[in-house]
C-alpha cells in the first residue's frame, strides 16, 4: 500500500511565504536584522568609555574624513562610534517600552473584553482618559514628575501606549469571543485564564503584531523627539535625538553633524514601518492569493 502523507499546513509558514514575496518588506527585515547585529556587536568593536564618551577637544568639529567617516562632534568624539552605540540605546528603549505597554495593555484589554459589562466600562473609560491626553504631553509630564532618567522615560513612554494596546486586544477578543471553539473550551470546563491565553489571544494575534511593529517605529521617533527637547536620554549617552540636539547649535557651519544621526533614526523607523506594512498584508486573509 502507498504511504499516505498528510500535509499539515502551518499557518505561520503560509504567512511567511506571503511575507517573503513582498520585496519592500524583506528589505525592512534585512535592515532591522542589520541594525540589531550592529547593536549587539557594538560592544565588541567599541569601548564605551574610550571610543564613545571620551572627550578629545583638540580634535573637535572635524569634517568627515578617512579616520572619522562621519566626522567628530564638539567634544572631539567620533560620530560614527556614537551613532553605532546609539542603535543599542534606541532599539532597547523601543523594544522594552513597547513590550511593557503590550503586556499591561493586553491584560487590561483581555479582562475588559472577556468579562464585558461593568468591568469593561470602567477599564475602558480609564483608557479613554489616557487616550484623550496627547501622548507626548503625557510622557513629558511623567518624566518631569519622576525625573529624567532611562527607567522613568521607559515608564512614561509605556504609559502613553498602554491604551492603544488595551483597545486593540479588547476588540480582537470581542471578535473571537463568541466563536464556537471558545464555547467548546468553556464546555469542557477550561479556566478563564486558559481560554484567554490559549484560545482567544492566538486567534486575535494578527492586528496585535501589526500594532506592535508600528508602535516600535513610533516609539523610536518618540524617544528621539523627547531627547531632542532635552527631556529624554541625557548626554553623554549617545542617543540619536540628543546627538541632534547637541548638533543643532553648530548646524549653520557644521551641517554634517546633523546628517548621520538623522539617517540612523530614519533607517530604524523605516525598517519597522516596512515590516509592519508587510505583516499587515501577509496577515490579511483577503489578500491571500
Amino acid at each position, binding site marked *: 500500500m502507498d504511504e499516505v502523507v498528510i500535509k499539515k499546513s502551518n499557518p505561520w509558514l503560509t504567512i511567511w511565504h506571503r511575507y517573503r514575496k513582498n520585496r*519592500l518588506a524583506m528589505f525592512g527585515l534585512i535592515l532591522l536584522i542589520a541594525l540589531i547585529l550592529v547593536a549587539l556587536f557594538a560592544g565588541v568593536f567599541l569601548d564605551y568609555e574610550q571610543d564613545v564618551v571620551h572627550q578629545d577637544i583638540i580634535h573637535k568639529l572635524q569634517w568627515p574624513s578617512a579616520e572619522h567617516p562621519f566626522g567628530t562632534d564638539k567634544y572631539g568624539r567620533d560620530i560614527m562610534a556614537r551613532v553605532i552605540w546609539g542603535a543599542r540605546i534606541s532599539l532597547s528603549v523601543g523594544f522594552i517600552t513597547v513590550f511593557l505597554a503590550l503586556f499591561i495593555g493586553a491584560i487590561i484589554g483581555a479582562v475588559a473584553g472577556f468579562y464585558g459589562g461593568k468591568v469593561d466600562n470602567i477599564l475602558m*473609560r*480609564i483608557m*479613554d*482618559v*489616557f487616550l*484623550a*491626553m*496627547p501622548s*507626548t*504631553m503625557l510622557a*513629558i*509630564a*511623567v518624566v*518631569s*514628575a*519622576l*525625573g529624567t532618567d532611562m527607567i522613568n522615560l521607559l515608564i512614561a513612554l509605556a504609559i502613553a501606549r498602554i491604551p492603544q494596546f488595551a483597545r486593540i486586544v479588547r476588540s480582537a477578543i470581542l471578535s473571537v469571543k463568541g466563536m464556537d471553539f471558545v464555547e467548546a473550551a468553556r464546555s469542557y470546563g477550561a479556566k478563564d485564564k486558559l481560554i484567554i491565553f490559549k484560545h482567544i489571544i492566538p486567534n486575535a494575534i494578527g492586528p496585535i503584531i501589526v500594532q506592535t511593529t508600528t508602535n516600535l*517605529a513610533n516609539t523610536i*521617533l518618540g524617544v*528621539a*523627539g523627547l531627547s*531632542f*527637547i532635552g*527631556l529624554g536620554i541625557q548626554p553623554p549617552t549617545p542617543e540619536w*535625538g540628543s546627538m*541632534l540636539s547637541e548638533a*543643532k547649535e553648530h*548646524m*549653520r557651519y557644521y*551641517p554634517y553633524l*546633523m546628517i548621520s544621526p*538623522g539617517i540612523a*533614526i*530614519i533607517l530604524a*523607523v*523605516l525598517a519597522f*514601518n*516596512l515590516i509592519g*506594512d508587510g505583516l499587515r498584508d501577509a496577515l490579511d486573509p*483577503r489578500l491571500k492569493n
Partner: protein
Amino acid sequence: MLKFVGKRLLMMIPVLLGISFVLFAIVEFTPGDPAQLILGEGATREEIEELREEMGLNDNFFVRYVRYVVDAVQGNFGTSYRTGKSVVDEVLPRFPVTLRLAFFGIAGAVIIGIPIGIISAVKQYSKLDMVCTITALTLTSIPTFWLGLMLMLLFALKLGWLPATNVENWTGYILPCVTLTAGTMAMILRMTRSTMLETIRQDYIRTARAKGASTRRIVFKHALRNALLPVITYVGMTFGIQLGGTVIIESVFSVPGMGSLMITSIRMKDSPVLMASVLLAAFCAGLVNLFVDILYSYIDPRIKSQYVKG
C-alpha cells in the same frame, strides 16, 4: 441630532475630570514647593510657611483637587507661579498661534495627501504608485524635528529666503507648516490609498462597473464617500492633537504656541499653567472629534439614521 450633540458634550465632562485628576496627581509627585518657587531662594522658612497656608497648600490632596475643579468650572484657573499673571491671560494669547500652525499644516496635508492617495490607488502598482508609496513611507519615517532642521538649514540659513524662527508675519509660518504638513500628508496619503483599494474591491463597485459607469464616476460617486470615512477620523484626531500644541515643531522653530508654553511650564514647575493648557488641549481634541462624528452623519446616511433613532 441636537440630543446627540448634547449627550456627547456631557460625555466630555468625565473625561476632562479624569484628565485633571491624573494631572493633579502627577503634579503632586513632582518635586518642588510652589511657595518656594514664587518667593525665590532668599525666602525664610516662616515666609514660605505663611504663603503655603495662604495658598491652601497644606490641605489634603483631595480637598485641593475639589477646590481646583470648583474654581476651574467658574473660569478661574489660578495664577501662574512663574509670571504671577492669571493663567487665562497666559494661555489665551498662545492659542491663535498654534491654531494657525495646526490649521495650515493639516489643510496642506489634506489638499495634497487625499488626491495623490486616490490616484495611487486607482493606478495600483503603476510606477507613479510605487513612487508615491515609497515617498510616503520614507516621509513617515523621518523625525519631524530633523526634517524641520533640514528645511531651516536650507531655506533659512543657506538660501536666506525665509526666516528661521520669527512668526511675527506670515512668512515665519511657512517652514513650521511645511514641516507639519509633510508627516501628516504622508499618513493621509497612505490611508487614503489603502482604504480606497479596499473599497474598490467591494461588490457594489463591481456592480457599478458592470452597469457601465465610467471610472471617474465610480471613483468620485461610489467609492470616495466610503473610502474617506477612516481618513476623516484620522484627520480629525491629528488636528485635535495638534491644536493642543505641536511641541516638537514649536521647539525647533521657537514658535510661541501652546506646545512651547507647556514645555516651559513643565520646566519651571508652573503647574497651574500646565494644567490649564493640557485641559484646553483635551477639550479641543474632544470638540474636533465631536465635529468629525457630526460630519460622518452627513457623509454616511446610515450613521445619521442611527442618531435619529437613538
